[in-house]
Each structure stands twice: as structure tokens, then as C-alpha cells.
């Protein structure tokens, strides 16, 4: 399976097969095609990569059930002072307001449940579509 990034002025699009092994390559493809200058290299190398890996991992695992016949769609808006990443799956969605605090002592030794918490700390804004099967991550310059 190969990934094909479509680049147009101001945006990029990528369809990612629902296979967790594709997450790393998809993240690298997007991160390496960001135009220089909007976000600092450090924010691209850590915040953007980690947040995108989280969003893709969640969409593939929970949204599309790791079914390689299904795809997760990534669309990147490139603004003068922001990068906005939309990750949408074709699943049933979920309610992002009902996620336990992973830093609570009772949850600290749990293996899963930190994804949204991590995303919220790494990007400037997180939004979900109404159905709950799409997440929008915004990283601003500065």
C-alpha cells in the first residue's frame, strides 16, 4: 500500500488505509511537505507529528476498525499563520466530552485513554464535527 499526497496551493489531501502500520509514514509525508515558515521546526517535529499520529491512530482503531478496505481522510489547510488538519473517518463517531481524566490516580496505570488529552495539550485548538467522526487540529504560528 502506498500513500499519495495531493498538494494544491493552500492545501494537502491524503487518504490513509485503515492500517495502524501506515500511521508513521502518513505523518512523515504530511510533516515533510509543510511549507517552511508557518510553524517552527520544533512544533512540526513534535507537536504536529504527535497530534496527527494520535488523530490517525484513533480514527483507524476506533473509527474504521482497522479494516484495510476502509480509509481515513486527511485534509490540511495551510494558512499564512496557521496549519489546520482535518482527520475524518467513516465510522459512527464518538462523544469527545465523555473521556476520563488519564492523570487521575485511578487511571494512571491504564494502558489506553490518553489520546485526546495529549492532543489537547499539543495543539492550539481542537474541534469535532457533529457526528464525532471528524477531528480538526489547529496549530498557529508563534
Amino acid at each position, binding site marked *: 500500500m502506498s500513500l499519495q499526497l495531493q498538494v494544491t496551493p493552500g492545501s494537502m489531501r491524503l487518504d490513509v488505509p485503515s492500517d*495502524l*502500520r*501506515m*500511521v*508513521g509514514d502518513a*505523518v512523515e509525508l504530511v510533516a515533510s511537505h509543510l511549507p517552511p515558515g508557518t510553524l517552527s521546526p*520544533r512544533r512540526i*517535529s*513534535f*507537536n504536529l*507529528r*504527535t497530534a496527527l*499520529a*494520535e488523530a*490517525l*491512530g484513533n480514527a*483507524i*482503531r476506533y473509527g474504521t476498525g482497522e479494516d484495510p478496505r476502509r480509509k481515513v481522510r486527511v485534509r490540511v489547510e495551510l494558512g499564512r499563520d496557521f496549519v489546520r488538519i482535518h482527520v475524518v473517518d467513516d465510522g459512527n463517531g464518538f462523544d469527545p466530552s465523555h473521556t476520563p481524566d*488519564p*492523570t487521575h490516580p485511578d487511571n*494512571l*496505570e*491504564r*494502558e*489506553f*485513554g*490518553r*489520546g485526546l*488529552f*495529549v492532543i489537547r*495539550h499539543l495543539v492550539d485548538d481542537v474541534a469535532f464535527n457533529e457526528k464525532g467522526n471528524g477531528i480538526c487540529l489547529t496549530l498557529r504560528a508563534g
Partner: protein
Amino acid sequence: MRFTLKKDKSGVVVVGVEGQLIVGNRQELKQKVLDALEEGSRKFVIDFSKTGYIDSSGLGVLVSLSKKIREQGGELRLAGLNADLQTLFELTKLDTLFAITRTAEEALAAF
């Protein structure tokens, strides 16, 4: 991305993580460490000095491995976190769960 396992002269297994530890490769790391545990190793250091980023699945596998190693009477230490990774451990409060040292050498000396 790749994982390297080396055993030092006192029997501590040092695991190097090159690239990233994320949802797509977490199982590979888990299996390598569990294999070493099964073969009798009890002391582990995971060296992140060549690691760019870790997602929540990567953090989760460390939590899981730490528990399994402790259940066998062993210990897992972490080393070489850059400033961003250190912040990630602090905000998730996982810095309270792991012994973290600046370098793998310091982790080895602390065993």
C-alpha cells in the same frame, strides 16, 4: 524507526528507540521486551535519546511493560528524554510512575 536491544555486562537490557514510538510500532517494542523478560532478563532501560516523538499508544505500552516487568520482580527505567518528551511525561503525570534519568548510563548506574 527501529528498536535495538543490548545487554550490558551486569545483565541490564538497554532498548534503543530510533525514530518514534507510536501506534504503528508499539507492538514490536512490546514483543521484544516481553521476549527478553521471558528469557530471564529483569532489569530494563529504554533509551529515548534518538526518539523524535511518542504518542499515547507508545506511552501506554510503556505503562503495560512496566507493570509486567514489576510483576516478575524486575524494573523498567527510562532515559534520554528530550525537553518535549519530558514535558509529555510530566503533563500525563507518567513521570511519577517511572524512574527517569538524563542518560542511559545514569540509569544503568542506578540499578
